[in-house]
């Protein structure tokens, strides 16, 4: 019920429910960077992990972002309770299919030009990873029509959306879009269409029929051959501005600091070098060590003092990386009339 801030807005358009946990809420239980679980809060519910047993009851009323301790006697185990977001959901959801991740999702939402009020079509629904982000983008007044070939997956997705309080914003339909295209009822109704199918080129004519003029199209394909066929189909179906992107997020790791706070001398040294910071050229970035303050910034000096500035930090790109997810081909429906 708490997935989107906009679904729990009061009259003034500002959410009030997001601050504390209620029954029925989806909570992301954080045990570690790679150990999170989605839990639906019920008064009788229990959460068990290696650190102990946690009673949901004790979570209710706590603000999201809180640490809660295990109810075992004498146990000191704890977990964090985070407010769900589509990004967290992507990390905890049950994989029914391969899913889209942050980089591609962000590109799809942004380059489909989705806004509150937009109507967007999606096929297939898959595990609903992207769908949550689409819903977030078009809420509270838009709608996502999502289609899934596989009946079981369609059902699971619909149940999930309902549990997340999104039923009013998304409709899941079981349908073979590659063979049948989108329903006629959606013709001329969509601001955006997104396809993640083995043969998106087959659906291009139907997508063209559904899109309003200037509406935007996107297909995700792991292989370049699919993109080539989709591009051909788009060119011959009244689309323009074709552009194919590949987008990856490269993570930086090994961000380790030599902990500061050891010596008074250091702080003094930092102060000395900070003294010269204002003579720094404006075209230089802020410097955490040695030179910290951007000139003329009211917060920098105080903030840097707060930092202590005695830590030395290094980073490098992560050694293991996602090398490829897929290509995103975008196009715009030509504005004829």
């Amino acid at each position: 019920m708490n997935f989107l801030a906009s679904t729990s807005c009061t009259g003034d358009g500002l959410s009030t429910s997001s601050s504390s946990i209620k029954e029925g809420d989806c909570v992301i239980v954080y045990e570690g960077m790679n150990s999170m679980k989605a839990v639906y809060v019920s008064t009788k519910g229990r959460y068990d992990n290696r650190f102990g047993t946690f009673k949901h009851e004790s979570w209710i009323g706590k603000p999201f972002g809180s640490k809660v301790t295990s109810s075992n006697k004498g146990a000191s185990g704890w977990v964090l309770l985070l407010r769900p977001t589509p990004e967290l959901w992507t990390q905890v959801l049950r994989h029914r299919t391969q899913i889209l991740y942050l980089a591609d999702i962000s590109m799809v939402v942004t380059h489909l030009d989705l806004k509150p009020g937009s109507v967007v079509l999606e096929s297939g629904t898959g595990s609903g990873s992207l769908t949550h982000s689409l819903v977030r983008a078009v809420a509270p007044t838009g709608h996502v029509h999502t289609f899934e070939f596989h009946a079981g997956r369609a059902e699971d997705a619909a149940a999930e959306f309902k549990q997340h309080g999104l039923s009013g914003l998304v409709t899941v339909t079981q349908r073979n879009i590659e063979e049948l295209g989108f329903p006629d009822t959606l013709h001329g109704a969509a601001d955006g269409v997104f396809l993640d199918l083995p043969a998106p080129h087959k659906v291009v004519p139907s997508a063209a029929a559904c899109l309003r003029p200037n509406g935007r199209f996107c297909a995700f394909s792991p292989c370049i051959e699919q993109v080539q066929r989709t591009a051909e189909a788009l060119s011959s179906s009244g689309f323009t501005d074709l552009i194919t992107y590949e987008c990856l997020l490269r993570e930086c790791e090994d961000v380790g600091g030599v902990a500061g706070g050891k010596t008074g001398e250091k702080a003094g040294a930092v102060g000395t070098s900070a003294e010269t910071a204002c003579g720094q050229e404006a075209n230089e970035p802020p410097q955490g060590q040695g030179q910290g303050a951007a000139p003329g910034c009211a917060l920098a000096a105080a903030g840097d003092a707060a930092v202590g500035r005695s830590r030395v930090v290094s980073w490098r790109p992560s050694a293991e990386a996602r090398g490829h997810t897929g290509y995103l081909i975008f196009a715009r429906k030509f504005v004829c009339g």
Partner: protein
Amino acid sequence: MAADGLICEGDHLVLDVNGEKLSIVQKLKATGKIRVGKFLVPAAPLIGAPYGALFEVTNDGRSLQRVLLPPADEITRIAETEKNNSDLFDRNTENQKLTQEQIEELKKSGKAGAEIIQALCSNSATFQNKTEFSQDKYKKRKAKKYLTYLTVREPCARILCEAYYDKAPERVYNLRHDSLAVMMSLANVAAGAKVLVAEQCMGVLTAAAVERLGGVGAVCGLQVDDRPAPLDAVRQMNLSVAQRSVLFTAPAGSLLRDKEAAVRGQLFRNSGSDVAANGKRNEPQEDKPAAEEEQQQQQPPVTAADETPPPRAAAAATATAVEAATSAEGGAEGDGGTAEAMEVDERPVDQPVSTSAAGDGDAPVAVTGLFLVTENALLVEEAAAAAAAARTGSGGEVAEEAVGRPPAAKEEQVDVGGEPRQRRGGGGGGGGGGYGAFLPRPEHLRAVLTSGFDSCLVALPRVHPTALLAAVWPLLAPSATFAVFSPWAQPLAEAMSHLQTSRNAVLLQLQESWLRPYQVLPSRTHPHMTCSGTGGYVLSGIKIIPPDATPLELQLQFLYQSQTLPSSQNQQPSIGLGKGKEEGPTEVRKEEGQDGG
């Protein structure tokens, strides 16, 4: 109906010329001219056309003509060629039999671009021997020269980001559209959210946040400098009154002090004596929405509130309160007395809070929407300097210099788009304002001060992110999502390390978005040969209530739950800022006892 409505006079536009170059037109005038590539043509044909419509510059270069069918792509579809270019030397000019004069004559004779290109091809000594792929390339190159197509785009944050990045990447610190997209996701910006934005990227992040809220929620543009940051991107979108109403700007210092007052429970009482300075303090009033409604009724009828831009006052000299409240750009056009309207937080204590634009009438709240606006700036400076000195032992002088601001805000001509623009855009939906200033609605301010911001976007690359995050930390609600942008990885890595140690945040990630555009053409598919090398770095995470909070920290954490500090902090007006430092990730450096759980 087209997905993005029709082009109206007064709209801002993004012009896309030959799919290659984006430029921005502000306040389209039906009688004006616009620059399209190398041509200056009357803008009239655009009015009433749908957004996304295609136009062609006529052969004489003097006017625009609507193109109603997609131009043929003229792409060779063969998979393999039997020709090869091995015996061709690339001597472009020598191979063309037509002289420059002859080409000029063709153009003057009114031939269509397509005809000229045909003539060039048939008069090329080498064209027929080129591979079909090379012929395509040749024609395409010539087409760019002799055909000028214009697509008119509705300005949105994404396309403005692309336009800025292409034209003047340094003005947006290389913030590329994909990094922007990722930040919006990671910070969980959506309708209903309360978003804190601190940026100096031409307003791109603020615009994107406003766009994503769709009129529901609140966006606070945090002012950390001595003057409001430029919000060009916000002003260059055709926002409706409703869309724009979510936005307000606030100086960091006053917001922090308001926050402190809120947690002390003193926000809505007139507590005169507890602050050294005193000024007019206006009680929040709930008549504001009514005022807005009234203003909307004064406007011409609109088809859809969300899609039609509000009318804008053409001139600013005689702005009345009502005009100021609805004018987007005109409000503070002048200088002198009018300019003061935006310096809400900066004036000396004994100068009364007033604004020439909106000082009376039915929008007084809009003017003094920040509850504690009359703090003496010098006091803040001194306190900050003292705090800094106490921490560094010798940093006092620096702090003072860094905090110091010129007595009067100095305006700069910011002309990113390359288009002529006004020196100052006007205020937001709530009232008149100065350069970059939008005054808050009281319900917004109350909401963000009591429950905190859900979401935080930062792109102030000149300020160290550690410092900035420490400063805004008290304003964020627990479980708030934040995303910080910088063109440099190192400061973000430092901030990340700091947050890791502090244990005030989880899911910390420092990422670089990597984007690759492709040419997908039959037998010619490859990534673009040149591309942007960097779109910047993004540090993201989620604020938490630190698990192993010490008693002191726990005490401070309780502030979020509106408990009262045991000792009075009244004599220390810097506590708003000072708390940020204590509360922030500064002091907590412990070993991770348990892997997060």
